[in-house]
């Protein structure tokens, strides 16, 4: 049986996780940690969708979560390819090195 909690608490948890991910994106310079923080942020958005779905008792929240999941998978696949390219060309994982790509 599912729990009944005020949706305020669930959204606050999602907000805290989102803000932790945002702090990670702002502070870290290593691309790997930037991508991990982005994953955290997207996961928090998914939690908010699940919470909304649980309020109405409808499956649409889970469907939006599945779309977020597909988006996260696509984003990670391409971004990790770019990480490999950056680490090969500049021999570093510094995100500032990406500005030297020049197209």
């Amino acid at each position: 049986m599912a729990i009944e909690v005020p949706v305020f608490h669930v959204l606050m948890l999602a907000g805290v996780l989102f803000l932790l991910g945002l702090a990670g994106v702002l502070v870290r310079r290593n691309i790997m940690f930037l991508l991990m923080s982005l994953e955290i942020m997207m996961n928090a958005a998914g939690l908010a969708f699940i919470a909304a779905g649980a309020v109405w008792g409808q499956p649409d929240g889970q469907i939006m979560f599945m779309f977020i999941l597909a988006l996260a998978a696509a984003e990670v696949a391409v971004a990790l390819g770019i990480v490999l390219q950056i680490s090969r060309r500049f021999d570093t994982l510094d995100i500032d090195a990406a500005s030297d790509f020049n197209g």
Partner: protein
Amino acid sequence: MTLDLVLFWIPGLVAIGATGAVITRKNASRALIYLVVSLLAVAVIFFMLGAPFAAALEVVVYAGAIVVLFLFVVMMLNLGRSSVMRESRWLQPGMWIGPFILVAILAVVFAYAFANIDGVDTKGEMVGPRAVGEALFGEGAYLLAVELAGFLLLAALVGAYHLGRRYLEERREQP
């Protein structure tokens, strides 16, 4: 109600703690293990909120596929002790001040916005995989979105192959 709140915040606090560990670790593989803990805690919350299918997807796709992809890349890049030292050079304590102020402002905005919907409870009923599948493919409401997600995944597949293939080819020529 109170018991439900306690049950909710146990994995919630685990998720917050593990996520805080992810953004402060210097070793990438340890951060990834903490990320797995965070994702599993969120999966438990999904299950308790009545979304078992989303919980299973969280474990299988997020913790099982995406994090493993990260781990593969960490292994390919061979991040060792030098990367940890470089990481501690990049991660000065003073760097946290500016982002912390911005995040605190956003936290106040979030708390204000969410406080307006206080008094709304989650329904407490399970919505199983059958209901999700029927809503996704049944009336055709999400047909276009499903097609777009398929195109997105195909584009990501082609892009990842293209980027990764050049890396592997030139690496083979080097030694």
